[in-house]
């Protein structure tokens, strides 16, 4: 085979991307593309896993058996999403154990939304409706991401997400139609989760350093602000329909643009939470670490058992 230089490889790579030909694990790819994907997919995986904690908090206290079964199934799905994504990260040559340790050491990030506490049952409604709703906005375009294993994982995830959003909206609808106390509880959950949900789309386009490169590589298909706008446009009428008020005095419909205008996001709060100073950051990571440490002996025992059986078989 004749020598091919890097710039020629890069040109061929970009040509594939531009023609919407997916990149697969063993294909040549620029180091930065690989690094960007490892960072993004592992952050996504961590978000799925840490995202189980705020909801797991309410499984034992769900108001009835139906809600409990549904919440359990939803949280189990999130574990599955984490696993699809960790295996996608591994196809890029990242070490799974190291990836998880990076979460536990604070080196790797996860979605800042999961650093808010779940104070009442209505928060299960707000999370399914808003947080999974925002996740869907982000994830649907990722089904066409240029990296094959990530795109395929997203197809599976998106199929499962829509039930997550519906069950959340159903909880909100039920509470909004209930007693004045129940309705107030739903409104309070919306008040607390609205702004953090808008922050899930990340910094404004002008502040977002990775966006352009990610768009050129077709990892991303829309900018943060575009996705955020789509989410607001989709969600505000849903709140109105069930008689809840979006907690934004600046929110108004713009007839001309066909979009909602909304108020300024508190970016100080966003960066504080990203940097680890949110209400639950420490608690979330401590819980994950504890789960890993306390499960260690089980993983070792399973390995020892497998070794013993393999030895017996070969003897």
């Amino acid at each position: 085979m004749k020598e091919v230089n890097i710039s020629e490889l890069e040109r061929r790579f970009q040509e594939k991307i531009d023609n919407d030909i997916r990149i697969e694990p063993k294909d040549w790819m620029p180091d930065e593309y690989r690094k960007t994907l490892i960072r993004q997919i592992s952050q996504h995986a961590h978000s799925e896993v840490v995202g189980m904690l705020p909801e797991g908090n309410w499984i034992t206290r769900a108001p009835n058996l139906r809600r409990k079964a549904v919440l359990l199934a939803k949280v189990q799905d999130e574990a599955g999403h984490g696993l699809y994504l960790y295996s996608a990260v591994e196809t890029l040559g990242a070490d799974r154990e190291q990836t998880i340790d990076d979460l536990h050491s604070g080196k790797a990030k996860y979605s800042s939304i999961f650093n808010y506490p779940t104070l009442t049952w209505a928060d299960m409604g707000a999370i399914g409706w808003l947080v999974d709703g925002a996740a869907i906005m982000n994830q649907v375009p990722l089904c066409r991401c240029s990296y094959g294993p990530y795109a395929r994982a997203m197809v599976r995830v998106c199929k499962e997400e829509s039930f997550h959003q519906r069950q959340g909206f159903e909880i909100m609808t039920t509470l909004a139609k209930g007693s004045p106390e129940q309705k107030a509880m739903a409104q309070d959950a919306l008040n607390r989760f609205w702004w953090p949900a808008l922050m899930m789309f990340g910094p404004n386009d002008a502040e977002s350093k990775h966006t352009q490169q990610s768009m050129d590589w077709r990892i991303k298909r829309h900018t943060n602000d575009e996705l955020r706008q789509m989410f607001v446009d989709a969600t505000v009428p849903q709140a109105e329909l069930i008689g809840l008020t979006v907690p934004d005095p600046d929110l108004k419909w713009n007839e001309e643009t066909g979009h909602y205008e909304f108020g300024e996001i508190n970016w100080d709060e966003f960066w504080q939470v990203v940097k680890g100073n949110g209400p639950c950051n420490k608690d979330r990571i401590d819980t994950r670490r504890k789960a890993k440490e306390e499960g260690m002996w089980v993983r070792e025992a399973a390995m020892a058992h497998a070794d013993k059986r393999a030895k017996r078989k070969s003897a």
Partner: protein
Amino acid sequence: MANREWPLWEVFIRSKQGLNHKHVGSLRAADAEMAIENARDVYTRRSEGVSIWVVESMNLFASDPSEADALFEPADSKVYRHPTFYDVPDGIEHM
């Protein structure tokens, strides 16, 4: 040998009788039995399968994508393997 990582397994699922097993992803498990149980939980929570194969990833061998052109070239140059290569006179219907 403390804290040895569980090996990686590739998972193949037959979605219904009559169809072939298809690769769906991978997972970690201590042995084949656990890999099948984990595959059930990870990849078939909505009845996506009637049968599961797992293969330890280290036992899987793949062609090299950078040599794909050379590898598949023999097929590309043999258009006469396709029925559309042949002229069929007008009036012939089922051929």
